[in-house]
């Protein structure tokens, strides 16, 4: 008991509880005294019980509870009988579109009214009171501390922790691997990332027995040059099993048919690594759709300004300059997929991406052209 009530109030006397003359209030006050509580102020909310004002307040609170029940009933009724099944496009005239709002309004009103009732009861009908309680802040008393210390010392002594250092060391040596054993099963989660970040669905050796991989649309249709008009773009996928699904998250490619003038600018700007492999075909260019920042699809193609915008963090890439970043947090260009048109007139990737597409990681291999930029 380090701290004391330093308010101006004097400590109330303790009373004899066996005294039969004690009123209920006096017994109650003795309880407060034992909890170091003192009443500063206590008066009934209404000086005279049963006045008009009190009755009125009771009616208000009672009304709130009753209306709350009414709305709760309405909620249950609406839950059961209001038409709720979705039946295709509907306007606000169709009752089923009001199912959720009606449920929310009835349940909300019911809860709010009950809450208002309880709160009004507490604020307007409970006695006005102000009490002060001792806080007893700070640690335990010195006595308690001494006893606790002695107890712990005894425990150490009983176990002989000081006298048996070997046992302590052995226990620690045993416990350390045991702790490791406890977390070891989490190792089952580990998986060698292998080439998952560097090889994509366009890798002919891995996914198509070395045969060049054609481009396809989402529905599986193979892509011919006449399917993309000037100023147009389509999203294409490797024409392999599940090529257009989430199994190949780094494979989606944006195939763009540039205008003659734009294609000329791009050819002029082309990185040597793409120039060497002749990555363009005619005025067509294919860029990885996966942002090199954190991997959202960079598919906002602005055909007038020749930019690609990523909607997640607003990186912007210049389509006529190897899709190099020109704004935002991205630091690397969108890899170009080298491609050509095969004998049957379909677009085909001549190799996988030359640099890994998508977000960077610490041991990401890069080509010198990138590092210069």
């Amino acid at each position: 008991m380090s701290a004391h009530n330093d308010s101006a109030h004097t400590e109330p006397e303790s009373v004899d509880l066996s005294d039969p003359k004690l009123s209920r209030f006096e017994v109650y006050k003795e309880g407060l005294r034992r909890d170091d509580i003192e009443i500063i102020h206590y008066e009934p909310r209404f000086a005279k019980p049963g006045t008009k004002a009190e009755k009125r307040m009771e009616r208000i609170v009672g009304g709130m509870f009753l209306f709350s029940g009414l709305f709760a009933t309405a909620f249950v009724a609406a839950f059961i009988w209001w038409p709720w099944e979705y039946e295709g496009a509907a306007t606000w005239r169709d009752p089923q579109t009001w199912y959720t709002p009606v449920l929310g309004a009835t349940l909300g009103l019911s809860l709010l009214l009950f809450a208002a009732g309880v709160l009004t009861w507490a604020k307007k009908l409970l006695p006005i009171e102000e009490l002060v309680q001792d806080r007893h802040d700070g640690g335990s008393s010195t006595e308690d501390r001494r006893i606790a210390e002695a107890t712990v010392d005894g425990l150490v002594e009983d176990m002989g922790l000081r006298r048996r250092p070997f046992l302590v060391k052995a226990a620690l040596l045993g416990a350390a691997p045991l702790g490791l054993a406890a977390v070891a099963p989490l190792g089952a989660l580990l998986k060698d990332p292998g080439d998952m970040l560097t090889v994509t669905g366009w890798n002919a050796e891995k996914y198509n027995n070395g045969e060049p991989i054609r481009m396809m649309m989402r529905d599986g249709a193979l892509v011919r040059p006449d399917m993309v008009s000037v100023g147009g773009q389509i999203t294409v996928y490797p024409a392999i099993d599940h090529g257009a699904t989430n199994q190949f998250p780094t494979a989606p490619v944006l195939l763009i048919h540039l205008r003659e003038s734009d294609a000329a600018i791009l050819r002029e700007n082309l990185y040597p690594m793409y120039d060497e492999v002749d990555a363009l075909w005619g005025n067509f260019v294919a860029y990885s759709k996966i942002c090199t920042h954190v991997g959202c699809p960079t598919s906002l193609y602005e055909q007038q300004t020749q930019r690609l915008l990523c909607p997640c963090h607003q990186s912007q890439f210049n389509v006529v300059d190897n899709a190099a970043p020109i704004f935002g947090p991205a630091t690397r260009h969108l890899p170009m997929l080298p491609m050509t048109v095969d004998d049957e007139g379909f677009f085909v990737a001549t190799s996988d991406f030359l640099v890994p597409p998508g977000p960077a990681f610490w041991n990401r291999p890069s080509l010198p052209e990138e590092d210069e930029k």
Partner: protein
Amino acid sequence: MAASAKRRRGWRKRLGALARFTGALVIVGGLYSVFSPSLYAQEPDANAIDSEAVKGQELYDTSCISCHGDDGEGIEGRGPSLIGVGSAAVEFQVNTGRMPMAAQGAQAPETYPSFTEEEAEWLGAYIEYLGGGPSMPDDLEALVEHADVGEGGELYRVNCSSCHGYAGGGGALSSGAHAPSLEGVSDEELYQAMLTGPQNMPVFADNELTPEQKADIIAYVQYLVNDDKDPGGVFALGRYGPSTEGLAIFLVGMTALLLTTLWIAGKS
């Protein structure tokens, strides 16, 4: 930036005056005698130009020529060539009020159209006459009626949602440009926009999306944006997603509860 825009506006005013003057001349000199030589020069068959195209040219020479140049050849730095864009593009731009453009900016804003639909058709006929180009299917209504909404949804999400948003509310593009909201846009306008790729929008010609697929997308957009009432409540919060939802929890939820705390407990 501002200064150059002002200069350009001044330019436009003078050009407009010039164009109006030319227009007056045209009327005075009589339509046929003025236009026939140039039309004959381009098109040997005189009968090929119908009266609609002639009326279109009249409008073109008063309202479009200052940016798009003589015979739709375009003026470097002001307006692109219109040869080959076709009537669908013209009708889209004119009927949505994007053209004629009030001032050069990041993007032509959508406003009230300056021409009637009939006049837009005339203009379209004239541009079509200059160099052909994609045009609307005659049976769009039937196509949309028989469209597959589910298929349209998949196509919408692959091709359209990246700019116009999942909910069709539009979105920001780079440097002040934006993809407009699809709310209240008619079937024809949706089709025209896909077909012709106005402004920054890529072209989705019939090679990329067949007329049936375009109809599927139109059906989906109309279902999502215009036909179906949001089932989740009275307020859809502009369908902007988490940004307005976050605003709502503070402006509605937290505000209501903070006022309640003030009511429940005192201030001292």
